[in-house]
């Protein structure tokens, strides 16, 4: 296990390097002058030159990149071009917000999905089963930005039960979390059902049934434990996916998360913020994937490292 972790962490480095290089170069070759953005339309050429010099934007590309790499290794992510505050100051609160949203939505979606999948599998082909799978399918197929809009129209505008967006308390998290969780719910429900069905048909389950063990005990003790494995992996993967794909939901709900920060910063050509946030999000994603693998391995006694 130690070797696996080591190998995966080692793999992390070239990935981060590659991504960083790609983002770095991309941001600088696209049109759009950050100095102009910082100064505003009525700044003269002398002011622009001064700003560019201040941020080292007039240096050759490889020099800029080299400097940036060294800084990152020292833990310095630079300053936002727009606000001149440390990049980490901008990123961390937003990353925190998105992580919170991701945890909340994944947790409840997984719990509900698990429950639904188990019951659906136990009552195979019943009305409940069909309906649950239909809802799950809808959850997977509905684009998050559409679901968010519909929820806003129904719950915030028409029924006035929830705020239409923004931040400021637990209640602001609910609609976005539901929106984000919809696809996880669908995936987990379907996966659990499939997994449970596979397990429920295994010989040892039939044996238990023949021995007279109660159905409920069979489901809970024997089937569940084994069916859980792929679901755990999927949930962990979904978490990573949600962390990255939250931008659409954040936009719809004006939620101050990392996805929105990235899109905004790309818009504003705020290079240090873009680089720093993509770096951190990727780092977290890869760690989450690693955790998923480990979790899977831990839960399944058949897998050895």
């Amino acid at each position, binding site marked *: 296990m130690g070797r696996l972790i080591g190998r995966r962490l080692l*793999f992390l480095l*070239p*990935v981060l390097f*590659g*991504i960083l290089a*790609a*983002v770095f170069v*991309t*941001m600088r*070759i*696209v049109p759009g002058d950050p100095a102009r953005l910082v100064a505003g339309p009525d700044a003269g050429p002398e002011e622009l030159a001064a700003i560019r010099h201040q941020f080292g934007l007039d240096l050759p590309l490889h020099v800029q990149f080299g400097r940036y790499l060294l800084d990152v290794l020292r833990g310095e992510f630079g300053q936002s071009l727009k606000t001149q505050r440390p990049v980490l100051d901008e990123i961390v609160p937003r990353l925190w917000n998105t992580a919170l949203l991701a945890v909340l939505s994944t947790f409840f979606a997984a719990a509900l999905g698990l429950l639904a999948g188990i019951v659906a599998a136990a009552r*195979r*082909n019943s009305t409940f089963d069909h309906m649950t799978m239909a809802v799950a*399918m*809808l959850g*997977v*197929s*509905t*684009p*998050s*930005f*559409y679901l968010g*809009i*519909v929820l*806003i*129209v129904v719950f915030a*505008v028409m029924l006035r039960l929830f705020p239409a967006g923004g931040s400021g308390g637990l209640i602001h998290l609910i609609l976005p979390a539901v929106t984000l969780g919809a696809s996880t719910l669908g995936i987990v429900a379907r996966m659990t*059902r*499939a997994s449970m*069905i*596979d397990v429920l*048909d295994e010989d040892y389950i039939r044996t238990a049934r023949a021995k007279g063990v109660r159905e409920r005990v069979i489901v809970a003790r024997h089937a569940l434990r084994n069916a859980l494995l792929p679901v755990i992996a999927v949930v962990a993967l979904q978490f*990573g*996916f949600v*962390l*990255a*794909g939250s*931008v*659409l939901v954040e*936009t*719809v709900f004006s939620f101050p998360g990392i*996805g929105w920060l*990235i*899109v905004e910063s*790309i818009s504003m050509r705020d290079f240090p913020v873009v680089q720093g946030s*993509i770096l951190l*999000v*990727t780092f977290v*994603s*890869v760690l989450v*994937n690693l955790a998923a693998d480990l979790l899977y391995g831990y839960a399944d006694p058949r897998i050895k490292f």
Partner: protein
Amino acid sequence: MPIPASSSRPAAAAWRRFTRNRAAVAGLALVLFFLLMAAFGPWVAPHDPLKQQLDGALAGPSWSHGLGRDELGRDILSRILHGARISLGMALGASLIAAGAGVTVGLVAAYRGGGLEEILMRLVDVVLAFPGFLLAIAVVSALGPGIVNVAVAVGVNTMPGFARIAHSTAHAMKETEHVAAARALGNSGPRILWRHILPNCLAPIVVQFTLRMGTVVVIGSGLSFLGLGAQPPSPEWGAMLSTAREYLRTAPHLSLVPGLAILLLVLAWNLLGDGLTEALNPKLNRS
């Protein structure tokens, strides 16, 4: 395409399984419906999707405008019908790019082996490690807005899945007698890949294609939603949804319709993909 003689009976059995699955058939029907809409929509549309009439702005559904009018007085129904072509075109283009690039990379990597294989598959892993949607955003930001660039961005995003499937299938086949025989007969590398290995990858690739279509449509319209895709006045569904947000309270019909269209398209491909998976791999989801 030569069908290996041993698989003709399973193919017929797969078809039977497919047709028995009502959800799968529904998916197929819906996909065909959208393909027809993409092909013939513009002819059937009652109005010019670009014709604006400012004083009719935001009108609700009526006899002459079945789904109402948007913020510039344009007919929503006509825009939806024209938009099908754009959404499907983008999705198919992106998927073809992904499949083409991915399969090529996967096959070459598996067949050549050694250092090249390592490098290529590592590259695939890097692309995969990149947080999904962000990769697409980064690519589109680099290339500039526009539906073609969106297709490229989404294609790049989806490529790893195909690469991996092609790679693992080719790897499995590499040491079979089938391939050894072909090589013994003097066939060259590319020929072996094309005539012998590729046909056997086809089934999982087709399944992957349909399974990923849903995601492709969502990412593509998501990018347009963020303003990075189709340019105005193009009636792309994601872009329509985005502009409709400003009118959520005054004219909700503007947002409900295009969103529903996207949902149904994604649902169609998902049902179809599910159906295909079950038909070809009967062990899953026995009922």
